[in-house]
């Protein structure tokens, strides 16, 4: 600050509010002691204090804090469920169509060759979709009914960070077994297997990234800039 008048006013205000003064400010106030300017400054400082007190006295209208907290919990429950709400119909449509397309030949094994690999894959996908939908359903039930919402969601958050890694570990372990079997008898098609593996790994990475991003607060420097730049 360069304006000497502002320096004086600020020093006087700091003194009246009991804030620690710098050496320069102390010297400034000492020089003014006993002068008419000190009196004038004192009157201005008193007016400033009155104004600040008036701002402090402002009270917003009475609010229903409990009701607002409950609405927050409702919003959190709904957001925890929403993603699944969208995900479950998506799974249901995709896998339902797949199941219907694959259902007819699926149940008719070849008399001599048994069930082809592609049918086995359909069956696995269908069962997988059923498992995912059931898990989502139970998760939603718990979100909507849990008394300790924060605790439940925190545990869920931690689990959702751990699960993709566990899935990757499991898939890699199964992959080793399948590769060994493949190299021995050649019964698993390499392209289909590698494709499936890549899909699982990509999904796991996607979920892990999403989960990690959710726990970070956005550091939006632009927002500070908005406060400083906004002229009204």
């Amino acid at each position, binding site marked *: *600050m360069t304006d000497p008048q*502002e320096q004086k*006013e*600020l020093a006087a*205000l*700091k003194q009246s509010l009991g*804030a620690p003064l710098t050496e320069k400010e102390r010297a400034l106030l000492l020089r003014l002691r006993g002068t008419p300017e000190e009196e004038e400054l004192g009157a201005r400082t008193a*007016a*400033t204090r009155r*104004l*600040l*007190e*008036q*701002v*402090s*006295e*402002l009270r*917003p*209208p009475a*609010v229903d*804090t409990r009701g*607002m*907290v409950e*609405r*927050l919990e409702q*919003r*959190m429950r709904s*957001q925890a469920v929403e993603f699944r709400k969208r995900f479950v119909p998506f799974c249901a449509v995709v896998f339902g169509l797949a199941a219907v397309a694959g259902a007819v030949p699926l149940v008719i094994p070849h008399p001599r060759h048994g069930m082809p690999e592609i049918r086995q894959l359909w069956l696995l996908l269908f069962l997988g979709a059923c498992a995912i939908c059931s898990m989502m359903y139970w998760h939603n039930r718990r979100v909507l009914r849990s008394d*300790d919402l*924060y*605790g439940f*969601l*925190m545990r869920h*958050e*931690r689990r959702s960070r751990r699960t993709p890694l566990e899935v990757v570990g499991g898939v890699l372990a199964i992959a080793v077994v399948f590769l060994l079997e493949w190299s021995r008898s050649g019964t698993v098609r390499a392209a289909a297997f590698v494709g499936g593996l890549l899909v699982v790994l990509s999904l796991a990475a996607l979920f892990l990234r999403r989960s990690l991003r*959710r*726990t*970070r*607060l*956005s550091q*939006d420097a632009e*927002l*500070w800039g*908005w*406060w*400083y730049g*906004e*002229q*009204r």
Partner: protein
Amino acid sequence: MRTSQEFTEAVDANWDAVYHLAYRLCGSRHDAEDIAQQTFYQAFRAWSGFEGRSSVRTWLIKIAIHASARLLKERDRTPQPLASAKDEPAPGTNAVEDRHAEVRLALMELRPLHRLVLTLFCVDGLTHGEIAEILECPEGTVWSRLHHAKKALAAKLERKEHVR
């Protein structure tokens, strides 16, 4: 690791402060509740990673300030009536209430940074050190901003008195 119980306590202890700050910055109950919800929702998601380098209160206030800026920026993009103290109680009959109504309106007419500094200092009762931590600037800068904000408020009030 922070627990859900601690979060519940943080919500109970700080909801009013966050709501009041948002109300002063945005000027409507609906927006204030929305900002308070956003603040605690974001805080919840980051709760396990909160290291406690600042107090929970200053951390929450910082999140609320960012949420308010987002909302005010959004408001700038979509034309809406300028924030006003529309939810405030009607001016009373005595001089003190009238003065409060004037101060409230003048505060709402200040530019956001001035309103923010005055609100943090006067309404939330934070120290200059805490405000400096929230605004990420030196304490001297906070004093200087408070001084300018106070002058702007005094000028607004003076103008209103002249008009009357």
